[in-house]
């Protein structure tokens, strides 16, 4: 009897613990005030050329929409470790931001070292009547090739 009570209590406690984790996750969720969906891609082309394109869609038409900053990371050990090799700001590269409901451009290109891996972290930003919000997005890894 005592043993069974202990077992049931343990199971009940575990259930409550898991439920609290779920509630905690739900409570910490934060959706964007101005962004609807977004993506960014690095594409490797010939002669080590790397392109960064981005696509950002706002919840409503935006006075400013695009990527406000892009960090480029490079790896020379097959993608095990990365170090930042370049940073682009929209203040220096106006093509990184636009206006309207959607931004969809290829604002950045650079020449990488053949055989090295690259990835980027961009800040997607949308400024509208609904608010000004920025979300971070990390691209997949590409390898610069001939």
């Amino acid at each position: 009897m005592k043993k069974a009570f202990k077992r049931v209590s343990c199971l009940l406690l575990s259930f409550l613990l898991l439920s609290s984790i779920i509630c905690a996750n739900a409570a910490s969720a934060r959706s964007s005030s101005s962004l609807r969906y977004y993506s960014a891609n690095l594409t490797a082309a010939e002669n080590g050329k790397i392109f960064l394109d981005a696509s950002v869609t706002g919840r409503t038409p935006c006075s400013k929409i695009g990527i406000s900053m892009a960090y480029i990371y490079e790896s020379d050990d097959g993608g095990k470790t990365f170090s930042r090799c370049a940073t682009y700001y929209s203040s220096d590269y106006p093509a990184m931001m636009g206006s309207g409901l959607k931004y969809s451009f290829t604002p950045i290109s650079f020449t990488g070292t053949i055989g090295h891996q690259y990835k980027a972290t961009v800040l997607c930003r949308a400024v509208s009547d609904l608010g000004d919000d920025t979300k971070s997005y990390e691209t997949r890894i590409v390898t610069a090739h001939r």
Partner: protein
Amino acid sequence: MAEFPHDKQHGDDKTDEMPETLSDERLYTELRKDFVEWFESVDAENFDEELLDAFLAEMEELKPLGNNFDSQSSLEAFHERISSLPAALSENSAQMSTPEKLTQKHHRLFYRAITVAATVAIMVATMMTAQALGVDVFGFLAKWTNDIFFFENGQTESQEPRTYPLAEGERAEYKSIDDALMAFDIDLPLSPSWVPEYVGAWKVSGTVMPSGMQIFAFTEDESGILTWEVSEFTPKDGPSIAIEKDAKGARQYESHGQTHYIIEDNGCNTASWIIDNIQCIISGFITEEELLKVIDSIYEVV
């Protein structure tokens, strides 16, 4: 040759005094006593193997070990021993039928049932946790976190390279979604034939990016009430769009054999799905029922 501590064969005084009627049994007892005393007193360094052999030989001579194992008699003995078992079992069974024992049995069954129910509850909770943490336990292709929904790479077969009507970086406008799909040579069910009445006409544009083609449409009033988009991705890299969502998880909606994911974000309902190497998104400030109707209209033959 080793000598016994008390060797009857060598005929000391003590032996001579022994009555002639001294039985082998008594001799054996004496011999065994001597053997035990010797065996307990001797240490490893002074151990005399020959003396041990002599002891054992003498004991064997006085009382040979029996070598007459009878399997039949052993079997009979075994049967005799277990013959009382059925009776004992019947007695136990009778005892179990008493009300007290029956109650104990019911209690045991009840606790087992509770344990099973609690285990099932924990499994369900674990699955819910996995979903909340972004793992789609039913599909594994679609994933979501607290605030975004996205498709994981994989399961997309490689496609024939598409022919684009535009060069990379170029942009063009089209009269309708159907026109744009035709221009990009996309023969897939993607164009909705129904939208809510209060939504204006589509404004459609297409472009080609280094990562693939993209066709985007939104309602003409530019309020952004409804958007429609198809984006190409390479099978190697997979889809890359992150869709904003609120605390609610994504849910699946099946229509005409295609799985669509419905994502809610503070009044903005979005549907997303993958067909070939294209990610499709319909999103807007319409009700979920209207969104599902828009999806269904894609597959209806007009």
